[in-house]
């Protein structure tokens, strides 16, 4: 009953994705998925099962070949590239395995870039960014450049960037893939913390321990949902 009342943040309806080739690669073969507000969901599956592809489609970075993606009730299939870009900037936070901080920009500037394309004043973005850096435990690394930070610290900066502007959903692809186990644990703890504070998060991982620590887990197999722990 309570579950039903929670708003749906993201919905996939019969989503398919093929990459051109001979024969074409059918990376997603008809996915239905629902993500509700406040969820912390793990997306697991063997290599090549379509996890990254699915995450890109969920985040409007890529268009599905067939099916519909709805973000906060809005069907993306009719949106122009400009509209999709704007929606990404406003409603989606991305975290990548390779951190992807912008070289030459300080931690604050990188986090602040989370709202760069929203026309918000630099000073407001900077003060938000500083607050978020404190929240991810990097209050003493504000002016550091990416190459002056450890991998774990870089990923915290990336997390803070994803949090900028309170997105509807945060999508993370193998965010601990480049980190040692202790640092991974800290990052995952941080995600739990953010989720408790209200963030909706989907994490692609092939680390079983991490996946099992999450309240929900969806398993992909050959471009199809093989198991959804929440259905049980």
């Amino acid at each position, binding site marked *: 009953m309570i579950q039903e009342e929670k708003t749906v943040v993201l919905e996939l309806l019969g989503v398919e994705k093929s990459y051109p080739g001979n024969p074409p690669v059918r990376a997603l073969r008809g996915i239905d998925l629902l993500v509700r507000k406040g969820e912390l969901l793990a997306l697991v599956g063997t290599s090549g099962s379509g996890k990254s592809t699915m995450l890109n489609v969920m985040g409007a970075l890529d268009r599905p070949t067939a099916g519909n993606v709805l973000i906060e009730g809005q069907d993306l299939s009719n949106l122009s*590239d400009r509209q999709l870009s704007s929606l990404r900037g406003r409603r989606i936070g991305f975290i990548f395995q390779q951190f992807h901080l912008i070289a030459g920009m300080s931690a604050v500037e990188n986090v602040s870039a989370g709202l760069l394309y929203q026309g918000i004043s630099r000073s407001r973005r900077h003060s938000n960014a500083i607050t978020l850096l404190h929240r991810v435990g990097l209050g003493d690394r504000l002016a550091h450049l990416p190459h002056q930070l450890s991998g774990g610290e870089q990923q915290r900066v990336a997390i803070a960037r994803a949090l900028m502007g309170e997105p509807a959903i945060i999508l993370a692809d193998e965010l601990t893939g480049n980190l040692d186990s202790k640092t991974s644990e800290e990052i995952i703890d941080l995600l739990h913390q953010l989720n408790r504070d209200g963030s909706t998060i989907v994490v692609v991982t092939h680390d079983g321990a991490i996946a099992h620590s999450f309240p929900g887990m969806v398993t992909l197999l050959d471009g199809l949902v093989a198991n959804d722990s929440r259905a049980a």
Partner: protein
Amino acid sequence: MTRKMGFSRISFADAIGVGTLGLRTRKTRTMLTALGIAIGIAAMISVLGITSSSDAQLKSELAALGPNLLEITPGESFTGAEVSFPEDASKVVERIGTVESSSAVFVVNTSVRRNEFIPKQQTGGIAALAVDLEMLSMIDGAVAEGQFLDLSSASLPKVVLGSVAAERLGITSTRRSPQVFLDDTYFTVIGILAAAPLAPNIERAALMGVEIAAELFDLQPEPSLIYARVNESLLDDQRRFDETRSVIAASVLPDAPSGVSVSRPSDLLAARTSTQNAFTGLLLGLGAVALLVGGVGIANVMVISVIERRTEIGIRRALGALRGHIRLQFVFESALLAALGGVAGIILGALITVTYASSRDWVISVPTTSLGAGVGLAVAIGTIAGLYPAARAARLDPAEAVRPRV
């Protein structure tokens, strides 16, 4: 629920920050790439600057010499017959209200030789002229060696040589009282004139007093040349200036004014220098080629930069940047890169001009419009060079761009 959704946007200040990031983080590359444009712009600015300085120098020289000097010579009447001036032509000219002063020059029919052993035909193009004592100040001439004719020497067998005449006769000093041979009389050289660009006739002549010329030679009583200085106020009023010219012609030969040629030596001199323009054009062309090469260099570096920064572009798209924002970022970066080169180029070009002009003691003149045009041209080249790389950057598929690289 359909949300009312505006498009992503970026403030002007932030766009500047984004557009300069690539240059700020790759300083060496920025400098080397901008250098190409800088060389092209510097070449063009210095060519223009040196030409303009040389013009300015000429103008100031002409101004110093006096653009109010007129040269009045007999030409041809409309029937084609050669005309000659009345004996008192110089005085007639001087009586005209707008004429300040005048001075007559007479041709002396004699050859001028170094000594009696040189054949008569070998005169080296040196004329003998009889002049009055005011002639030198008339043409703003100066004595380089010795002295000019005075009341006493004007009636003695003494000559003053024009600069070219002295050189052709091989006389460089008056200290040992060198002599030249005219018809069958040795004349003592008492002075050598400095170059007188306004009066090439005088530069190529041996000058003597009218009295001695009349005494020793067959002197034509009609002046063959009259120098006149008109009132300076005419220089700012072309109509009155032209009027004075006609009045001079009509006064000298009331029956055949068209047979009087009234020219301004400074005009001829100014016209002669414009022949340098072909060479200037060639140098400008070389500068343009350097610019073109610089532009290709920028395009090349920008393409490399787009490839290197694929992930950054992907991230920006993930953060909401529109294709237009990405395009703007790279076009701006490219234009800025060229603008840096342009600014360095105009500074360098101006320095070259100043150094060259001052080494020649010229008036320094760097046309300010060429400075503005130099930077403008650089920006235009940078913008064009950036269009293709920027379009490539904007076309990148965001999902592709954020994929981990192998």
